[in-house]
């Protein structure tokens, strides 16, 4: 009735801290109430069939809902995956529910539902690239959705929205674009399947402390003014629009608060280039003049 199209969605969490969900709850406009209850774009309502933190039901009730959604809405539902996929020891390190008294590894859910979904959003760095649980020595054999899909020959369209956690706007904006414009074209995504809308530029390019970098004025300890490069900032090699968008309704963001960027949207997070507190080494860092010169050439 009422001519509103229902878009079924299933949100599955695996090797995750739940921070991507909590970050999504922080969306301001639309509010999370708008997303759950109202038409997120006119005539379209996301029907969130399952979310572990929100769903009223527990146990068998919700396991059935997940299975039914996969069966009844094959090719029509959106799958949102939060968390990495533990694959060691047959996926035993992350179990979501039981079927005929057999535990169901999260890995199995990703494959089963991944094949049937209209599109998959890998939400957060763990789902996109392995993230923290996939950090050395990767005790539970965590893999990204991208790697699982490659290995299992799953060709469902995949969008990576990394970030630890991802900004709520990145998620809401991506869902809205899916509803308005349909599946992303290959030129909409970068080499790591991140939407260029949000991950198109380096932190360093738009950083509010960039002028300090170009002037060679570097903070020597926390609380100092100056560029945070020597205190370990990963902004020069990290793609995301945090400096422009800012966080938590725009009140702050990492570099504004005096801490370096931790590179949390990057596939190398958190292992790359040493400590969060150590200066990047051997990195070719663009300077403003050089950047424009390259454009002019």
């Amino acid at each position, binding site marked *: 009735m009422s001519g509103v199209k229902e878009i079924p969605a299933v949100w599955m969490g695996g090797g995750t801290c739940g921070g991507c969900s909590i970050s999504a709850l922080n969306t301001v406009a639309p509010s999370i109430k708008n997303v759950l209850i109202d038409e997120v774009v006119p005539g379209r309502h996301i029907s969130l069939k399952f979310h572990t933190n929100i769903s*009223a039901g527990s146990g068998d009730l919700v396991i059935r809902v997940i299975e039914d959604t996969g069966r009844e809405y094959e090719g029509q539902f959106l799958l949102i995956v939060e968390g990495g996929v533990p694959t060691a020891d047959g996926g035993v390190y992350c179990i979501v529910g039981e079927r005929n008294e057999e535990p169901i590894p999260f890995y199995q859910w990703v494959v089963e539902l991944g094949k049937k979904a209209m599109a998959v959003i890998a939400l957060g760095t763990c789902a996109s690239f392995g993230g923290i*649980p996939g950090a050395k020595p990767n005790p539970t054999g965590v893999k990204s959705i991208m790697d699982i899909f490659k290995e299992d020959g799953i060709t469902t369209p995949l969008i990576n929205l990394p970030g630890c956690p991802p900004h709520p706007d990145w998620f809401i904006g991506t869902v809205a674009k899916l509803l308005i414009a349909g599946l992303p074209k290959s030129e909409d995504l970068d080499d790591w399947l991140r939407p260029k809308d949000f991950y198109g530029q380096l932190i360093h390019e738009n950083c509010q402390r960039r002028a300090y970098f170009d002037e060679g004025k570097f903070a020597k300890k926390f609380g100092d003014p100056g560029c945070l490069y020597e205190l370990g900032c990963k902004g020069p090699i990290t793609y995301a629009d945090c400096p422009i968008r800012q966080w938590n309704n725009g009140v702050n963001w990492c570099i504004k608060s*005096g801490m370096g960027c931790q590179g949390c949207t990057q596939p190398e997070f958190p292992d790359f280039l040493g400590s969060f507190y150590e200066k990047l080494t051997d990195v070719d860092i663009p300077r403003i003049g050089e950047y424009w010169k390259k454009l002019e050439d």
Partner: protein
Amino acid sequence: MGKIVIDPVTRIEGHLKVETIVDGGEVKEAGCSGMLFRGFEKILEGRDPRDAQLITERICGVCNHCHTTASALSLDSAFGIADKIPDNARHMRNLTMGFHQVQDHILHFYHLAALDYVDVTKVATYEGNDRTLKSIKAFISRGELAPFVPRYEGDYRFSPALDQELVSHYVQALDMRHKGHEATAVLAGKLPHACAVTPGGMTEIPTVDKIATLLARAREIREFVEDIYVPDVIKVAETYGDYFEIGKGCGRFLSYGIFDLDGSDPDYTKRARLFKQGSTSVGLEHSPLDLDQINEWIKYSWYEDNTSGLHPFDGETRPMPRKEGGYSWIKAPRYNGEVYEVGPLARIAVGYAAGDPATKEMVNFVLDYFKASPDVLFSVLGRHAARALCALHIAKNLEDWVLSLKPGEPAYIDYTMPEEGTGVGIVDAARGALGHWIVIKDRKIHKYQCVVPTTWNASPMDDMGNHGPIEQALIGTRVRDEKNPFEIVRIVRSFDPCIACAVHLLNHKGRELRRYIIA
């Protein structure tokens, strides 16, 4: 005799399975199993100690700021600067933790627990002009009720009018909790997973504009707690009064205390804190906190047996997924060899036992209101009430802490990281006692152990055969309708379990629930 398996338990953080044996309508045996293991302790080994805080906060997207703070305290202590952190940073840490905990309690009551008591579908009969309720009515009339159904059916007791009011508060609370995150981020950079709390203090420096905005934000969240949250908990208690008698638990309580009122003592167990350190029992006598009394047992957990009974400083995390007899990868921490509950109820009980005037006043107000004696606190409703009182106590202090900030003055002290050292950081997180233990060798993390609130509460049996607190709270409970076991999920959720924090596990196929054999 029947088995009730609830897997997954939703509206908590993380992967939890609860299994009970019910005979003659009564829970005879209960087992809690965490269903996720990530191995943070292994991931931390060999890293730069300073990185611990940015990695351990990512144990949990819900309690992240509690880990941030506990880890920063453990690093301050390992670096020998625990008593040198500038007061500005101490106030900022209190404020970020304070805003975070209040929003966390709001999240738990409204978004994790309330749907066990409040029936969203009753908004279908709403006839008024409130836009929120009208939009929910329209949502219901479209017929797609996910994620609010399916659910257990039956025991929803509120009148439609009260139900509708609580649903509108559910929506209002969604707003308040993200505002709590915003206020935390004003000083902490961003949330979840803050960056401005660091060993040595804070990377932020307070400014007058931040003080102004924080004052307004502190007032708004305090007013919500006073005018909406606390009265709503009372409404639930008035309507579901039998839950003052259900879910008692182990009857022993442990708190590490939280919110440093003074930073000069390097020993966190002795610091003046807003919520007091110590232990107590249902008799409400107070004992001081002694961290040496903590050991972790793993006979029923999926770890190698020779790692049982260790103090966190000596702790090992050696997984053994198919160990005979094991049923959880949550370890079983014990204090003085005994089972202890942690969390808001423990904080309130310890404060009351220690004679803290503010705690006594709050508790006595509640007891007078319900014309009850203190033993009703040890129950499902007692936990919800204690959580609301914790939120209230914090909310009433936030504005004073904002006014203690010194704009433009340092909030960070530089330090030299030692070659070797040990540190411990303890806080009472929203969900209870949280400890981080670090051993540094060659300026690298040699060992790191976190003993987190849900490890205490959702622990399996220990080597001595004692059940964990949630298991004890379940055993003996009467379940009226085995198809809709409200009592079980209401008891479990009253503890506000957070399995991402508890870090661990799985269950192997065809397991008997210990001595009970299921036909």
